[in-house]
Every structure is written in C-alpha cells, then in structure tokens.
C-alpha cells in the first residue's frame, strides 16, 4: 500500500486537472507556429499596378493581394510582406536595362514573429494593401520598369508575384 502511494495517482482529480491543463496548453500553443506556414502553397499572391504609366516624381501606386484558394483556412506571417510596410528588399525593381533599383528603406533587428504577426484567411478570402513603390525604391529617371514581389521562403512562405511592367514619363 505504502509503495503505491508514492506513485503518481493518475486517477486522482487534482492530477487529472493538471494533466488536462498541460495538454490543453500544448494544444493551444504548439499548432500556432506549426500551422502558421502550412498550406501557403494555396495562397495566390498578386501585384497589380494602378496604372501602366506614371509621371516622374508622382506616386507609383501598387496593390498587393493574397488570396486563399485552399478549402481550409490558412495563416501566413506578415513579416517581409507589404502588409507590414517595408522592412527589407521584398521587391525586385528593374529598369529597362535590367539594372536593379536600390532598396532605401529600413532594415530592422526584431524578435521572431509572434501570433499577432500572422494574417488569417478563411477559405476563399483575400486581403489587399495599397502602397507607393517610391517609399522604398526611388525612381529617378524616365523609362520602362518592372517590379515583382519576392516571397521569403522561411519568413512568410509566400511565392513570388508575377512581374508587373510600368512606364515612368
């Protein structure tokens, strides 16, 4: 009898509550991160230019969208997407000679993304953001340009967008 008392009694109410609590905690915390970058291949990324040509010096307005084509809800991290603004060279902007336009925005040290940094899309749902390209990529000469969003395999697991062409006159 004495020896059995020293063993943890899984039938007791208190132990059950603790175990249940631990399991609930693990269920609630673990899948958050693991699911975060799952099924992102079902997310369609698009970049659209408001116009096919812009005047030199005026805003180059682009719309970035992500649509969930999966039958289930999917989440993705907003880090290094236009949804959070510019924190790195997330676009590839080329002039007509194929020369890259340099990124001039900030580069930041911060912690790994937390739950608040994920965007949740239900099946069929999409989210868009409009931004001015010149904020991070100054265009100083007239000519033809191309711009493309480059997905970050590890941070947001999004694919690249199609290449968008526009003219600056």
């Amino acid at each position, binding site marked *: 009898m004495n020896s059995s008392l020293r063993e943890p009694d899984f039938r007791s109410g208190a132990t059950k509550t603790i175990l249940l609590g631990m399991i609930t905690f693990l269920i609630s915390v673990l899948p958050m991160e693991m699911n975060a970058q799952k099924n992102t291949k079902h997310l369609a990324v698009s970049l659209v230019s408001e116009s096919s040509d812009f005047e030199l010096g005026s805003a180059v307005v682009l719309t970035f969208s992500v649509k969930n084509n999966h039958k289930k809800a999917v989440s993705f991290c907003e*880090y*290094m997407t236009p949804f959070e*603004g510019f*924190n*790195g*060279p997330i676009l590839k902007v080329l002039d007509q000679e194929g020369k890259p336009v*340099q*990124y*001039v*925005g*900030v*580069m*930041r*040290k*911060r*912690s*790994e*993304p937390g739950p608040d940094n994920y965007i949740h899309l239900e099946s069929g749902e999409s989210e868009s953001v409009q931004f001015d390209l010149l904020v991070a990529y100054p265009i100083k000469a007239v000519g033809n340009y191309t711009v493309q969003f480059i997905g*970050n*395999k*590890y*941070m947001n697991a999004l694919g690249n967008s199609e290449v968008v062409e526009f003219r600056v006159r």
Partner: protein
Amino acid sequence: MLTQLRKEDAKQRQSVNPMPTTGPATQMKHTSQLQEAANNSPQVQQLVQLQKGASSKNAAPLTASTGGQTQASNKDKKAVEPKHNSDEFKGKSKKKKIKAAMNSAYRMISKAKGHVDKDHPKYKRWMDAGKADIGNRDKRVEHVKDGVNKIEEVLREEEITLRKYGLADGEEEETFAYVYPDEVAHNIYLGGAFWDANTSGYNSKAGTIIHELSHRVHSTEDHVYGMKDAKALAKDDPQLAVTNADNYEFLAEGA
C-alpha cells in the same frame, strides 16, 4: 546562390571602407615610413591619425610610440574603444550603456574572427552545419570571414552614430534597432527592445550593433529572425545563413 554571393561582394559600398586594412602590429612597424609619406598623401595622413588614436586615448605624438613595439601592439589591442557618437541621448545612463555595448561589440567580433573555420563548432552552429551538400563550403567560409573582418574594421576605424528611433510606425517597442543600408554615415537607430536587452550575450545590445553593421557593410538581409530559425538555416540552407544578419550576430554573441 553563389552568384548572389558574388554580387553581394561586388555591391560593397565604397563609403564603407575608405582605408586599407592593416593590423595594429603592422601599422606600428611602419610608423616612420608612414610619417614621411604622410607629408605627401592625405590618405596616409589619415592612417597615421588612426594609429595615433589607437595607440593612446590622448592621441600622443608619433614620436612617443618608439619604445617596445610588441608591448605597444598588445596594449593597442586592449585599448580599442570604438569611436561613436551618442549626443542625441541626453541622459548619462544611456550614453554609458551605449559605450559599454560598443566596447562589447568590438570584443565579441574580434573573438568571433577566431571561430570562422568550417570545422569550428560555433561556425557550424550559426553558419554552416555542413550537413547539406549545397554549394561550396570554402566559399562560404571566405564570405563569412570577409563579413566579420568588415564589421570589426568599421568598429575599429570609423565613427558610428547612435540615434533615437525616428519612425512613426508604432513598432518602436518591438524593435531593437534599424539602419538604412544606403545612408553614407553609419547611423544606427535604437528602439525600445535595445534598452531592455543585456549588454552582451544572445540578443544583446552589443549583438544588435553587430547585426545592424552587418546590414551596412556586408549587405546582409533578414531572411529569418531568432535563434531557432537561424540555427535551422545553418543546417538546411547555409547559403542563406551566411547572408542573414542574425546569423552574424549569434556567431559573435556566442564567441
């Protein structure tokens, strides 16, 4: 990916390294020749100025450094305190913290130089676990060596300006620091997380400075953030690890 490495090498900004790289010992050895040359060349004159700064806090005249070359060199190594400007911060406490972080950053990166070897456990942990048979491991070692040298050099030879957070984006508390890669001056803008961090160790104030300088002088990016993902990158995608700012920071912080 290797093409990317080469491109990044080529991207090296001229403003960053105006000086030839010379170790303190070599510099001491050539003092007299340099002194002569300085009369004719402004660039060499600058180098002599740097030597003076490094050999004594009070910038003693060159003639004072004639005694015991080896002794002087050893002293130089200990005496390096990165030049920096923290005038934007009025309180003494913040200035003191910045100074401690700068000194610590220099010590860390100098020590990390000795760990850049493809078989060193710390290099393997943060840069290239050597598991994935991707690209050229030796080229990656060279790339990391180049980056670590550049970070050490900028701390030793140039002035870093620490500035207040200047963005109205509501991200100040989560941000350790940020830089503009294209700015001519070495400005590092400090966020709330910087002040909460320890002076040295992982995710520290000193490490933040190394992280930011890696963006400025070695064209690193932020492919991943945090120790867990940085370590995973070193295993699964070392080509990206050697261009990721946090990997340089962690390599130095663990040195």
